[in-house]
């Protein structure tokens, strides 16, 4: 019997602001701007929103949405505090809310001044979930995600022979896709040589292995599929969705396997709910906080075997026209960093066949991941409904 949540919820609206480095707008203003666009895209009025799942921490809260959008009867407000895994995991919460009839239309949104506001070096230690890292790792000089994830990347290289050339491929292909998009922070071509020449941040990560600090906002509206069918846009359903949490969730260092994280648990659940496997996926938007995390996730998702993520990304396979086009919008590496909600926006666009020059031909089934909070994982499989 099909899972009770399979295809019961749909992404009815998508919205995003311009992605920039430098803005005078507040994070909340960016979040609301993207929200209004998503609501309008769905053909809804702000008054139709009765559930909100804003990104936390660092954005609007339920009260802000009631005050700014005049929501007459908010039925559910929730946070999904999983760092970069939050936005895709929020799809699960929203899907449950609309499939059960508790809500009609749930708004998931992010607004961020990651460039003109608080930068990455100061952000991490303010989160309660990083108390362990702040106590034991920050004093020895380990406090930025680039440093913390670098040890996993190094171990992968040592164990499996993964190379920085393969890291570069992810960065270069992602940049090529970004240029097709237009609404991106980085709009000039990137070569493998430029990647290799960029300054070292935390070995093995160079500058172009790291996602952007940027300003921007994104939002999606999740509605019950039977209602969304009557709305403005082509129906894109949430076919499977799941979140997963690793062992030693607050410290990568203490995790039995540095390379095994929450996505390993989430992936089989999401594929099971959707009733499909990796071979059925036409396009994937993979959370790219770092080039290497894309490689590692492709393994945990089952697109290739453990240790084979490096060779998998080569030879045009992850580029448009390849076997598994990924990050067709430019991702966090080249488009902008709005905690991965831009990946959900793009996948929805792909399945509406509205992705312009970056459109994957005849895309029917797509996958999007979230990755964050030292290893939490989330994954959604979206389907273009017949």
């Amino acid at each position, binding site marked *: 019997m099909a899972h009770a949540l399979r295809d019961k919820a749909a992404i009815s609206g998508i919205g995003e602001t311009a992605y920039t480095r430098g803005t005078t707008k507040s994070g909340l203003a960016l979040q609301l701007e993207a929200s209004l666009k998503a609501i309008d895209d769905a053909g809804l009025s702000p008054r139709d929103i009765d559930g909100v799942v804003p990104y936390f921490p660092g954005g609007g809260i339920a009260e802000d949405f009631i005050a700014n959008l005049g929501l007459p009867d908010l039925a559910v407000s929730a946070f999904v505090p999983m760092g970069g895994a939050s936005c895709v995991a929020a799809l699960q919460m929203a899907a449950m809310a609309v499939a059960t009839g508790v809500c009609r239309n749930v708004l998931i949104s992010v607004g961020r001044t990651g460039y003109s506001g608080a930068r990455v070096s100061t952000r991490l230690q303010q989160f309660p979930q990083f108390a362990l890292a702040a*106590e034991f790792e920050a*004093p020895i000089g380990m406090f*930025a995600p680039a*440093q913390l994830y670098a*040890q996993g990347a190094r171990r992968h290289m040592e164990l499996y022979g993964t190379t920085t050339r393969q890291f570069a491929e992810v960065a270069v292909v992602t940049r090529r896709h970004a240029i097709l998009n237009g609404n991106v922070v980085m709009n000039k071509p990137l070569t493998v040589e430029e990647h290799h020449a960029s300054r070292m941040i935390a070995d*093995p990560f160079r500058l172009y292995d790291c996602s952007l600090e940027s300003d921007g906002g994104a939002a999606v509206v999740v509605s019950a599929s039977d209602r969304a069918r009557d709305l403005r846009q082509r129906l894109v359903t949430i076919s499977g969705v799941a979140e997963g949490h690793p062992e030693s969730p607050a410290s990568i260092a203490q995790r039995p396997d*540095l390379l095994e994280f929450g996505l390993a648990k989430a992936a089989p659940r999401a594929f099971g709910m959707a009733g499909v496997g990796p071979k059925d996926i036409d396009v994937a938007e993979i959370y790219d906080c770092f080039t290497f995390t894309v490689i590692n996730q492709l393994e945990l998702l089952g697109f290739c075997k453990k240790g084979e993520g490096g060779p998998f990304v080569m030879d045009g396979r992850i580029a448009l026209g390849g076997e598994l086009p990924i990050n067709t919008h430019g991702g966090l590496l080249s488009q902008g960093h709005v905690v991965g909600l831009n990946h959900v926006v793009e996948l929805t666009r792909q399945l509406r066949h509205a992705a312009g020059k970056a459109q994957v031909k005849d895309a029917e089934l797509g996958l999007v991941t979230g990755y964050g909070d030292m290893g939490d994982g989330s994954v959604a499989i979206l389907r273009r409904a017949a």
Partner: protein
Amino acid sequence: MSTVSAATPPVPERPLPTPTRDSQPYWDGLREGRLMLQHCAGCGKVRHYPRPVCPHCFSMESQWRQAPLDGRIHSWTVCHHPFNFFFKSTTPYTIALVDMAAGVRINAPLRGMAESALKIGAPVRLAFEPVSKDVTLPYFVPG
């Protein structure tokens, strides 16, 4: 009336640990030049970082025991960008993640080993660096 002095760069502060009731014995141990690790009083398993409950048998009773200082490299990173400007003067610095003989993993700076000598399994030994009256931090040297 207050006076405004000419702008001088702020002196960056070293991030220091804030020990908790659960972790205090670990920090006390480092200050005394010992690696103290938490062992479950119920099933005997060692755990790190310190926490109130054993995740294996759920006992809330534990004992702190002195552990040997030797271990082998599990992974590492060489930090070039300081992120926190306190560390600017010491970049690049190597942080090694080490599988301790005691059965836990410890992350700490590794000094005195060339980058070309870094490899998984290389033997290292924990050492102690007092950084304030109350706080001593761990680092590794070749073992």
